[in-house]
């Protein structure tokens, strides 16, 4: 059953202009379950959908799927990301990732009441129980904005980890939990460590930084009912980036699952409060469910639902059996066991393309899933463990090459056993913050840091060794042979995928003033970047100036490889491709192997012979200035 909503968007566009897809990414329900609110990041709107459940044809028959009707929509800021209700249900808050704002919407009139300036890249958000305070995760700023809603002002920011993404208010109102997509910046030869940040709503301070070892890409947070202990489910990806990627054939290289977190209470802030974290996989031994993203419980907690955006599946979990599994297998062992899911997964149901956030109706009968690349919602009949319907939100029907390419990017079925998609290691079209041991004839050598995909269209060649002249080479047979261990993409598919990759835009620069004017510090840094002489007047050889390898007219990359003295013990070559510098502040860790954890370390630690530009004559003030300039690019 498929319902079509709205008439204002037509599928028959024939022009070369890319149609405006809706891209639903988040959704929430009214407290009575009769209204569904969907954030459409593609057309910058919030949509209100009326839900009504019709009785079945006979008294004994199952109720029909809820009918869905678009009631109205409101335009919000650019790239809206998440939505949250006020406790009284009278107000909706929508975060606008590229506008750096939060739209406050009157739920009755469905108009924007106020627009609140937020931090950099606002995403997940929630109010406190009283509805007086709003917490907003700033994905680019790596912090949480805390708003006094009465005054409409931001009163403080609390530091999170990297790329804070989703937030959830605990059922008792004591804590706001924040999931972070990227792990701690830590030594490149160590397993990743991620953080679930817990904020005490009474003190509005960070109460605990719950450590999740070995995993990255934490997503939607769901809390079990109190009778089940109130544990949290947090989807994650568990990479084995220290192993050579040839092990994809043996499985277990990139696994997908969820952390079961039992918060210990408010004793934190100065010390970890003893929260218990158990990591359990949702994959099967012979097939994986990549892109775990959305998580929700039924009101009674008997069923948990987790979406897998790159497997296009929603998994239904019997929580009683999950608990049994957690009791039976030691936590340290469980994190790597691929035989767990079969013990508690009761059903896997197909969704639309790129299923993301999920909500469950107050009566527990239906779950609603936002399918970002389908412009649709999947409605799950939870008790019957089946798809009740698919709601077409009315986006363009024309599937353009770009749209197709983006779907391919998020599709793990091209990989052996569905282990991962392009998006698995490039969450949000960016990077995963890890160094990987990719294809190499000598295992354990040539470890390379992941690189962002944002703004790469004109930065060929690709790969750290610069051997891939174009994205077709980068993503074609090489991907199939060395990474996916499968047939990979067909030629037409590859063409669309590359078109999509080239379309990935850079996010707005948060370090540069809107008018482009540099601050005094940035201007001093610019002069250092383009300097031709050292502080004592000696000429810097042309080959050792910043702008030689990072020219301004070419995305700050010369599109060539250079030896800047950064080859490490396990590297088989010393020439490395010059990375583009735009939005470099988001790209840590740095250098080809991710050894430099900060921009400073590039020069303070890894440039002792002045081979990566002449910097040894610079004062610390000058280095700070240079870095502030680099952040403006």
């Amino acid at each position, binding site marked *: 059953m498929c319902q079509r909503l709205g008439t204002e968007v037509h599928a028959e566009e024939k022009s070369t202009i890319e149609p405006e897809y809706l891209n639903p990414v988040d959704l929430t329900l009214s407290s009575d379950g009769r209204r569904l609110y969907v954030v459409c990041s593609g057309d910058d709107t919030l949509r209100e959908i009326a839900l009504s459940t019709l009785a079945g044809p006979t008294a004994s028959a199952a109720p029909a799927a809820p009918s869905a009707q678009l009631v109205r929509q409101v335009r919000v800021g650019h790239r809206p990301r998440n939505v949250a209700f006020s406790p009284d249900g009278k107000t909706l808050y929508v975060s606008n990732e590229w506008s750096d704002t939060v739209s406050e919407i009157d739920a009755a009139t469905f108009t924007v009441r106020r627009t609140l300036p937020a931090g950099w890249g606002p995403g997940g958000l929630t109010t406190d129980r009283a509805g007086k305070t709003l917490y907003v995760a700033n994905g680019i700023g790596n912090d949480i904005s805390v708003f006094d809603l009465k005054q409409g002002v931001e009163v403080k920011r*609390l*530091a999170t980890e990297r790329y804070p993404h989703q937030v959830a208010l605990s059922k008792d109102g004591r804590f706001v939990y924040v999931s972070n997509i990227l792990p701690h910046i830590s030594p490149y030869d160590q397993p990743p460590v991620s953080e679930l*940040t817990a904020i005490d709503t009474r003190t509005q301070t*960070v109460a605990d930084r719950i450590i999740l070892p070995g995993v990255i890409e934490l997503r939607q947070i769901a809390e079990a009912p109190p009778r089940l202990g109130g544990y949290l489910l947090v989807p994650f990806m568990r990479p084995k980036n220290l192993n050579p990627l040839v092990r994809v054939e043996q499985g277990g290289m990139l696994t997908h699952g969820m952390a079961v977190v039992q918060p210990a209470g408010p004793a*934190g802030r100065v010390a970890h409060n003893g929260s218990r974290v158990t990591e359990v996989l949702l994959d099967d031994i012979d097939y994986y469910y990549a892109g775990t993203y959305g998580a929700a419980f039924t009101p009674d907690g008997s069923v948990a639902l987790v979406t897998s955006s790159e497997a296009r599946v929603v998994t239904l979990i019997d929580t009683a059996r999950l608990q049994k599994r957690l009791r039976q297998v030691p936590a340290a062992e469980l994190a790597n066991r691929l035989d767990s899911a079969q013990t508690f997964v009761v059903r896997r149901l197909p969704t639309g393309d790129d299923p993301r956030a999920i909500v469950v109706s107050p009566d527990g009968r239906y779950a609603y899933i936002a399918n970002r690349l389908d412009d649709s919602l999947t409605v799950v009949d939870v008790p019957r463990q089946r798809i009740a319907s698919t709601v077409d939100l009315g986006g363009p029907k024309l599937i353009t090459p770009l749209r197709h390419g983006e779907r391919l990017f998020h599709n793990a079925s091209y990989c052996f056993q569905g282990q991962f998609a392009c998006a698995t290691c490039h969450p949000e079209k960016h990077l995963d913050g890890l160094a990987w041991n990719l294809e190499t004839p000598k295992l354990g050598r040539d470890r390379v840091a992941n690189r962002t995909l944002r703004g790469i269209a004109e930065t060929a060649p690709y790969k750290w060794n610069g051997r891939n002249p174009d994205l077709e080479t980068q993503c074609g047979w090489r991907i199939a042979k060395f990474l996916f261990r499968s047939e990979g993409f067909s030629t037409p598919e590859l063409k669309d995928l590359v078109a999509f990759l080239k379309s990935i835009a850079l996010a707005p620069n948060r370090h540069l003033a809107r008018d482009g004017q540099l601050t005094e510090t940035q201007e001093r840094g610019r002069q250092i970047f383009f300097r031709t002489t050292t502080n004592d007047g000696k000429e810097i050889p042309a080959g050792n100036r910043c702008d030689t390898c990072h020219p301004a007219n070419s995305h700050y990359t010369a599109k060539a490889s250079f030896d800047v003295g950064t080859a490490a013990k396990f590297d088989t070559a010393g020439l490395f491709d010059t990375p583009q510098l735009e939005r470099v502040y988001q790209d840590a860790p740095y250098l080809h192997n991710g050894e430099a954890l900060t921009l400073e370390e590039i020069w303070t630690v890894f440039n002792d012979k002045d081979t990566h530009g002449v910097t040894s004559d610079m004062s610390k003030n000058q280095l*700070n200035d240079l870095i502030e300039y680099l952040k403006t690019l």
Partner: protein
Amino acid sequence: MKEGKRRIDDCRLPIDDWKRRVGKPRGPFNGPSTVKGPLFQSSIVNRSRQAGSILHSALALVVILICASVAAAQNPALYTRWENFTQANGLPDDKVLSVAVDGDRVWAGTENGLALIEKGKVERVFQVKDGLSHRVVAGLAVDKNTGDLWIATFGGLSRLSGGEFKNYTNLTSGLANDIVYAAAIQGEYVWAATTAGISRLNTRTGEWSIFNEKNAPMHEPWSYGIAVSDTKVYFAVWGGGVLEYDIAGGYWKPYNDPDGEMEIVLFRNQGLIHDIVSGIAYNPETKMFWASTYFGLSGYDGRNWHNYLSTDSGLASDFVNAPKSRGNEVWACTDKGLSNLDFSTGTWVTYRPSTEGQHGEILITTPDKKVSRVETPTSIAHNYTLNLDFQGDDIWVATAQGLSHGIRKPLKEISSHESARSGH
């Protein structure tokens, strides 16, 4: 100077003696000649005797009661009970360099890590193995807004938040130098005093700024202390005097010793006592900053300087490690004890271990230079004091041999004890 020596038991003080010396009370009762502080009692009684009138006696009694109450409220009570924390009861090291109060929590920075004292005991110790950037913790700053603790160490600047350390060093960040003596919070900025200048981190943008001899009026970059007011940030610079940074304008104003670096003072109150400034404190109530130097204590009220030397005041020593101030209280952590000035009365009180045993010693110096000495059954841990913070009426003192918790005995309580003892 004449010292009146007296031994007391169980915190009972020679309060009558002390009250006679502490000077006149301030406030609503200040002014009329009938109210002149502790000495007024005898003058009023004498007057009533001269009159021979019962009415006058009754009136005098009422005034006595009122004024005693005022004195109790406005004269500083003494810290007669000390609880000390050392390695013996959980500190990671006896040498405590810094202390910071965060509500019910007290943080102590030692030469071998950081300690959290809560509910009267050392609750937790953090060391390098726990993620702290260096074992020597020289300074602490609690961000009241975020709840994070910023830790100045000899190996960089650490942030403790939600049980996790995040470290900033000269190599990994824009920090000027890894030897950090002090940290302070000013809005979204974290300031750090280092041996190579002052560093400032914008916690929202991640931007680091460095202020040193290249871009600020400091001929010595070695910075020891930071104090923050609503509009200004003050820095103690070793050999460079006091630097004032205007937050709105972004400009600097130096305060230096008019005598240069001469270790004598030509004219009292002519300016900062000495350019070797070891610490700085700001008092938001009096809007004064106080600078500790190795040659005396200086205070500046925006117009006049108020300087104190051990030779002409009750300051225990000219070698002052750190100041602290609130209300009329000015504290000086010296190498010969902890000194407290009641700025309104000019009375000094110094706390130090007794040289004659296990007891504590309080020296009270009145403006007329008369000194009385009191022994207390417990003592501050050591005479070499380095830092201090307030916790309500209590004080916490970092010393060279432990952290001391000074518990104030309310004057009223002391009076009643004294009254009971004397049979009134």
